[in-house]
């Protein structure tokens, strides 16, 4: 149902230790955002592309499609950063509109360019993590980091329940559409609202049933589970550390 979730199960990098992948994604993301350097971002973008689409086996067309998801925000946001409306024209461009100028400075354009680069590089880090790691493995890695148990339990349950409700929600919407529930705007609003309230009531019922099932298996207040372990290899750790050091070097050198 959710594309990224489906792809993560098919990734060839799926069985690499999740903690290593998490460490890589987070460190690279941090360096990318901290440096705000176009050089670092470009490198990160390229390496992640190779890792995800190349080694991970994610179809390139889908990878590109996913990269366009944040584009709308990026374009809108960058336009807002670059373009000024001011009485004084700035040095890069100035389009007079009555008394005012729609204008931008070269420093501003430079900043916008670095912003786009950083954002795109950062997004590929996020995609590396989400496209090559199954969510349950990410949660298992977080469990090892000793995050608050209640938070992790909620996250584990929410992840599973999302799919249970998505199935029901889409079924209700399909059924509504089959009965002309999307005839006009007003009907569509009513249909969605009814779906929302029905889904809510079903969610409450389901949660009771699920709790009974957990109790039936001796649930005693803490959600203890065992995860499959894919042991980390020293070579992978080494790669991550070396790569981060290299990125650090690029940042220092190219600025």
């Amino acid at each position, binding site marked *: 149902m959710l594309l990224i979730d489906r792809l993560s*199960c098919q990734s060839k990098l799926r069985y690499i230790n999740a903690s290593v992948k998490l460490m890589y994604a987070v460190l690279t993301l941090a360096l990318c955002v901290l440096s705000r350097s176009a050089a670092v971002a470009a490198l990160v973008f390229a390496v992640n592309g190779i890792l995800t689409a190349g080694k991970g086996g994610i179809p390139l067309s889908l990878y590109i499609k996913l990269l366009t998801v944040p584009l709308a925000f990026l374009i809108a946001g960058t336009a807002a950063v670059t373009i000024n409306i001011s009485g004084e024209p700035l040095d890069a461009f100035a389009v007079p509109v009555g008394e005012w100028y729609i204008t931008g400075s070269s420093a501003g354009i430079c900043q916008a360019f670095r912003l786009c680069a950083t954002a795109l590089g950062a997004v590929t880090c996020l995609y590396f993590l989400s496209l090559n790691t199954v969510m*349950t493995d990410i949660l298992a890695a977080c469990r090892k980091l000793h995050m608050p148990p209640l938070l992790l339990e909620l996250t584990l349950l929410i992840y599973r329940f999302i*799919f249970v409700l998505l199935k029901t929600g889409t079924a209700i919407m399909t059924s509504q559409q089959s009965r002309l529930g999307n005839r006009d705007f007003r009907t569509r609003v009513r249909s969605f609202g009814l779906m929302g309230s029905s889904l809510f009531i079903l969610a409450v019922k389901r949660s009771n*049933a699920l709790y*009974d*099932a957990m109790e039936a298996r001796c649930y*005693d207040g803490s959600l*203890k589970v065992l*995860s499959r372990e894919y042991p980390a290899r020293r070579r992978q750790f080494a790669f991550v550390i070396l790569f981060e050091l290299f990125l650090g070097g690029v940042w220092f050198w190219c600025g």
Partner: protein
Amino acid sequence: MSYCLNSFLAGCGFGVDEPEDMEYNEMEQEKNWVIEVQDVSYTYDGDGKKALDGLNLNIRRGAKVAFMGGNGSGKSTLFLCLNGIRRPDTGRICIDGKPIRYTRKGLLEVRGKVGIVFQEPDDQLFSASVYEEISFGILNLGTDEETARKEVERVIEELEITPFQDRPAHALSGGQKKQVAIADILVMHPEVMILDEPAAALDPKHTGKVEEIVESLTAKGITVLMATHDMDYAYDWADEIVLMHEGKVIRQGTPFEVCTDRTALEQASLELPAVVRIYERLKEKGRIPGDIAPPGNVDELIAYL
């Protein structure tokens, strides 16, 4: 059985057993009851009607018992009472001769012995990972991690879950989810396994798989209680059939005994199994001798012809 015969003979004036022997037989019977339900009633909050109404029931250890009855007859409610999820308003339930204690420890003990596989796997599977899902029950029993892993892997292999053990729960088919749901309970080594309509919404292939799994349960000595609407399957598989109607047990006995009780069947809105219908028709027409034992299944019937 021998107890019934003895009481009958005793009733006829043949004092077959001495009183002490009778008591001993009774005790023997009780030791064999893995489940005893005594006068249990239960009403859901806000409901007017009783879901269970003074229900009495005994289940022998190692038996294969089919529960049948219309929707709303109380089967699911009874199952939930048997492992302490629902506490009856009146009466009591004994597991292994001991009444259920509704304390934390008592309930944990019951649930370690009596496991329920719910009808709807989506009401039971709470984790997206099959491995994590199955490990839940056995960890809750206090098993150490290493042993738990071994048990989880053993059950995965036994129930042929290996091909899809790495898929997330939401990507599994209904039949695969059902296999995982059964594994969830089997890993806990229960003495009693309750299956609430296990073949509901399953294709023939997976229904067959479930039937295989159920056979292996009995081979292990696990008492199996199954709610089903499939009369033919129940007649073939079960040692005993329990007919329920409006929160009561209206008939309990061997499949043939139950099936020849027309009134009870009608009350429970059930039809005769095909085997019995054909058998009776053939008997009527004189195609098979009337003194022959009733067939247990289709193969036996064919053998008579």
